[in-house]
């Protein structure tokens, strides 16, 4: 399981990273591994606003559809259209090429309340043990 040191993490296995004034989010390496082959990602429209924890998208693997939760409240400024033809990027490169949405947070400091990479690594390892 890989983690991105520059990202913060949710308990629902999303990563979120500051890039300039915006935040970028996607699902973690642990999450993509659990889901296995991803065949479709449904993403929101640019301009949509979501609260923290609200479902903003759906990621579909061969066997199941899973919700994606907004890590902190914000307004979508861009979505990763390349996932339409290449959903496998989520499996291959979850923290870079496999990003889901870019958004402007309501509160720029909200991200600081989330787990850092070390805390998430422990959290995910414990989740794995529970399986």
């Amino acid at each position, binding site marked *: 399981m890989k983690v991105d040191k520059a990202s913060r993490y949710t308990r629902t296995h999303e990563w979120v990273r500051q890039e300039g004034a915006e935040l970028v989010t996607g699902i973690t390496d642990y999450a993509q591994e659990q889901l296995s082959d991803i*065949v*479709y990602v449904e993403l929101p429209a640019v301009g949509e606003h979501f609260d923290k924890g609200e479902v903003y998208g759906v990621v579909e693997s061969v066997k199941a559809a899973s919700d994606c939760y907004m890590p902190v409240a914000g307004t979508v400024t861009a979505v990763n259209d390349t996932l339409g033809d290449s959903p496998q990027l989520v*499996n291959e490169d979850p923290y870079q090429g496999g990003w889901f949405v870019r958004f402007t947070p309501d509160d720029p400091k909200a991200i600081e309340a989330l787990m850092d990479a070390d805390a998430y690594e422990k959290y995910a390892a414990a989740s794995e043990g529970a399986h």
Partner: protein
Amino acid sequence: MARQTELYSRHEALGGRIVEFAGWLLPVQYPSGPLEEHHTVRRAAGLFDIDHMGQVVVKGPEALQFLQRVVTMDVSQMAMGEAHYSLICYEDGGIVDDIFIYRLPDRYFIAINAANTDKDYLWFRYQMGRSKVTVDNVSEETYMLALQGPKAAAILQQLTPARLEQMPYHRATENQVAGVPTLIGRTGYTGEDGFELFFPREKAQWLWDRIMEVGAPLGLKPIGLAARDSLRFEAKMPLYGQEISATINPIQAGLSWAVAFGKDEFVGRGALLKAKLEGSAVRLVGLEMIDRGVPRHNYAVALNGQTIGVVTTGMYAPTLGKYLALAYVPKEQAAPGTEVQVIIRGEAKRAQVVKTPFYTPAYRR
């Protein structure tokens, strides 16, 4: 409690992700993932642990007459060593199960679905009456593996004296495989060339290991349930509980070809003849998504906001690279090119009826 197969430790060692299926603990996938497993079977070969499948043996002086009455195909037309797809129906035409019958010198050997094993066996017992037949459920002592893919014959030939190049599709022979007495059927559930192997349960690990050993250089990989489903789906092979069930008759399912109306009385004949003459109001069709989205089992099919049908199986089809579904729709919407919608999470996504099978099985090429 779900049961482990004899190969459970092999699946664990291979990193298989174990799930419960029809009361058995089986690998849904191995680490390479279901998409790669699917392609492996289309391009090289795959080995499947399908011991969850059931088997029944029918023999005795009236075995033929008994089967003629219980199954939909004309068993009297089977050549020695032939394997044939058939159905078992209820009186009302609903499907008890879909099966493969093997005609062997001393018996009829029947492969049945895992989830239906007990039901089928009881159904056979109740249909016996005073017939001079014995019906034995041999599922416990019989192990079943499937070796499927264009390289399957080359792999199996290294382990058996049976002359596979002289064995056409849907033929069976009894011979040794790696020293194990095996019923070899040139049959399968993937749309590829391949074999299904039936042999004594205690030889499962030995035979699995021998096949993997000789197959590995030819690209053989173990394959899980997820790829088994996508492979059979592309070839439009029905899955009991999805495309077919007790409330669906063979005419609706597009399986009229598996019903021999010309033979004498069999269970369900009257109802099926009526259904055939009246024509089915619903048809099983293929759908291809126009809008993006993954159609799945039980999603509604709609036309202008009204539900008109249901998806039986849907998924991203790996060989075709498309989002496809099998669905029941009214016959008025069954023509290829007809546009309908699939309701995905409350949203109507456009799809169109397309010809099936999506992928032409090897035995029909």
